[in-house]
């Protein structure tokens, strides 16, 4: 039982990381119908920015955090202008390739600028965690789970209770109609990329104290997050969260009870099963195709 609880906690923790990155996927997909294969690199870049500001320059943690996220916002703008916007009228394939190119570019540019050494980034808390009976709760995982909850709540509030959120939704559902209502569609898409970059950045900064800051940290998480997105159903925020958590838990338990070396296989096996038998994900499409 102790074992199960401990595995469950870790599973939820790692699942929350997938969920955070998956949120970014879903947002961009909903706004543009494009899968951003460079989403993981957003996390990596943010973590390196954090290292630069908090470790190398020795700024206070919160200041470094805010400046890093501001940096991510700028990256989101550049990404939109350089990688997505010029291709917005083309089919999905060139956009996929273009985001893959962007991911190679970001990873290796970071390597060129910062060098290959993995870096240490301290967590928010001094203490490592809490011993709760037989279960050790890592403080950073607790923070990640809490942040995921807060961000989901924020996202819910933002999309359901603000005009801006409604405008973003309208843009993702029918761009032409949105522009007829005076909604600045180009700006909305820009905003989506900025927000996704920030979300990816938060995920990266939160996970850095656990996984350390390395060039390839983004791509490993992103593939899993991608799987989580499909399991949850593309285009559904709640689905991304559930999918991420489910994946984290299944992976952890699968590793404990089935096989550690094939751990990564569970994610993809689940993904294939979902695509074969329930391609619409756990929740299905929220919006019917034929109105």
């Amino acid at each position, binding site marked *: 039982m102790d074992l199960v609880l401990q595995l469950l906690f870790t599973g939820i923790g790692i699942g929350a990381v997938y969920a955070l990155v998956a949120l970014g996927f879903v947002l961009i997909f909903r706004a543009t119908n494009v899968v951003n294969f460079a989403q993981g690199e957003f996390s990596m870049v943010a973590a390196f920015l954090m290292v630069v500001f908090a470790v190398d320059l020795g700024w206070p943690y919160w200041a470094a955090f805010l400046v890093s996220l501001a940096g991510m916002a700028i990256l989101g703008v550049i990404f939109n202008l350089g990688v997505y916007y010029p291709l917005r009228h083309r089919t999905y394939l060139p956009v996929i390739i*273009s985001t893959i190119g962007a991911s190679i570019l970001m990873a290796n540019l970071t390597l060129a600028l910062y060098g290959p050494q993995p870096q240490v980034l301290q967590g928010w808390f001094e203490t490592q965690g809490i011993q709760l009976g037989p279960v050790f709760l890592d403080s950073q995982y607790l923070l990640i789970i809490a942040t995921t909850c807060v961000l989901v709540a924020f996202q819910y509030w933002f999309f359901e209770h603000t005009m801006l959120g409604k405008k973003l939704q309208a843009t993702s559902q029918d761009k032409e109609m949105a522009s007829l209502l005076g909604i600045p569609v180009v700006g909305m898409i820009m905003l989506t990329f900025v927000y996704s970059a920030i979300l990816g950045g938060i995920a990266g900064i939160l996970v850095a104290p656990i996984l350390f800051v390395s060039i390839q940290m983004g791509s490993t998480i992103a593939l899993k997050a991608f799987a989580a997105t499909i399991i949850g159903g593309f285009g559904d925020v709640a689905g991304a969260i559930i999918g991420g958590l489910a994946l984290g838990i299944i992976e952890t338990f699968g590793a404990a009870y089935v096989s550690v070396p094939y751990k990564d296989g569970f994610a993809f096996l689940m993904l294939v099963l979902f695509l074969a038998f329930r391609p619409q994900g756990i929740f299905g499409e929220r919006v019917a195709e034929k109105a």
Partner: protein
Amino acid sequence: MSTGGQNGIEAKSAPGDAATLRAPSFPVSHLGFLALSIVAVFLAATMPFDGYVLNILMQAATYAIAVFGLSVVLGLCGQINLAQAAFFGFGAYAVGIGTADYHVSFWLCLALGMVVALGAGAMLGLTTLKLGGHYLAMVTISFQQIVTLVMTNAISFTHGPDGVSHIERPSILSSQQAYLAFCVAALAFVGYLVWQLPQSRLGRAMRAVRDNELAAGVAGIDVYRTKVYAFAICALLGALGGGLFAGGFAYISPDQFSFAESIIFLTMALLGGIASPIGSVIGTGFLILIPEWLRFLKSIPGLYLALYGLAVILIVLFMPDGIWGFISSIIDRFRAKPAPQAAGDLVLQPGQRGGETVLEVNGLAKHFGGLKAVDGVDIAVRRASVHALIGPNGSGKTTILNVLSGIYGATAGTIRLDGADITRAPTHIRSIAGLGRTFQNIRLFRTMTALENVVIGAERRGNELVDGSAQALEKRALAALAFVGLKGREQELITSFSYGHQRLIEIARALAANPVLLLLDEPAAGLNSSEKLELHALLKRIAAQGLTILIIDHDMTLVSEAASHITVLNFGKRIADGESVGVLNHPDVISAYLGSDD
């Protein structure tokens, strides 16, 4: 996932492709290819290359074979495959494990690897039934990841991450140069086949599926099977390349067949231009050479891979058709147009099985959720008549046509064509049964010439007027184009035709199939008045040959003059049916169109 016509890659492709890939009319280029291949093989066998150049060339040659596979599945058929490295690995591991551990003949291992990959590829292709776009991409990524995991972890069989060393190759090819020459020969051979593929029945089917799935189905192509074939061929070529690669480098390990490698294969295909094997070779060569050239940037780690990533983005942004697409469009400007070919007369001899009624629709309904787009409609089309189906916007006409041709399944009712029940038959089976149609928004295969479009129509299984030989197909297609008045423009690409002429080509495509019944969906939409007159004359000529036509159109002048019988729909129901003149003066019809008086 949408399965619309634009599913897949860009509909527009290198304008030169179709022309450059046209082989049958250029016997000289066959010889040219042979000569070039012989020279390449000779050079590979005799040039005093040092080890580095040999390795580079060997890598390029074997990779290019795998990239050919992608040019088939992606370029010809428009389906994405992000697992080519896995298939490459199948071939490599078959040769590696087979020769190193079991000392089986290289050739046998190579063949075995190709067979296994063929099976796996077909299996992957089967998923296209339900999935397209991003989902398909994700399935192939998952397949790739699982294959990598097995390669790494099934240590007792694959040697795990240690990889397989001491891979053997046939004794006659034991020298590096001999082996390279052999790889180049294989490259040339496969390249020739891939070059010729677009002109084959299967190749045309793939291109049709890529350009427009709906139209392909309506033209009698089994879309699903075509995709499965494309995946299988892609996997087969991947495995061939991988097997040769293993023989060339004598050592393989799982990281050579990872997802990252699949991306590199894809980029190679895109960089060169996905629609052509020449593009594949160019792309492969570039992507193997560029990192080598850029090694001078090594003083800053990561810089050249960063530039590589940037290059990928720039290519996608500014050279959508790849390098070869760019070059061939330039070459194309200086290419002389082929001489017009002689065309015979088009014969329309629809076979006759059933009785007087060619199409019998009973109680047909199509509901979309709560929306009753078509609600219990009866239509009977008499043999050799022109029958019109009319009604205001949103009355359900196009829905009926889509149900008739199998694009939508019927909610209720039956459809009998020439005596046979086709209510549940898939699109291509209906076409084989003799149903031909055109679309309201023209659905032609846009990267092909007019002739190729019409040849696909003529190829319909069940067309008894052609024996399936290339000459017979071409002859019939030429006749069909001449029949609609486009003689002399057969070799031009669809994009160079005016809108009105594109409509005529679509009709020619349907006519070439020698259908039992021709469905015309708003053939006059978007035509100017002189084009409408031409269309009218054409309809008369078709009717004169005894072909039954069911036409939907808004141009009442055309409908009333061409059709002998009219069925009128409103709100998904039949509101009038009978001889033309009577129906058009029917008060319900007038009020449906002009609004009721009350």
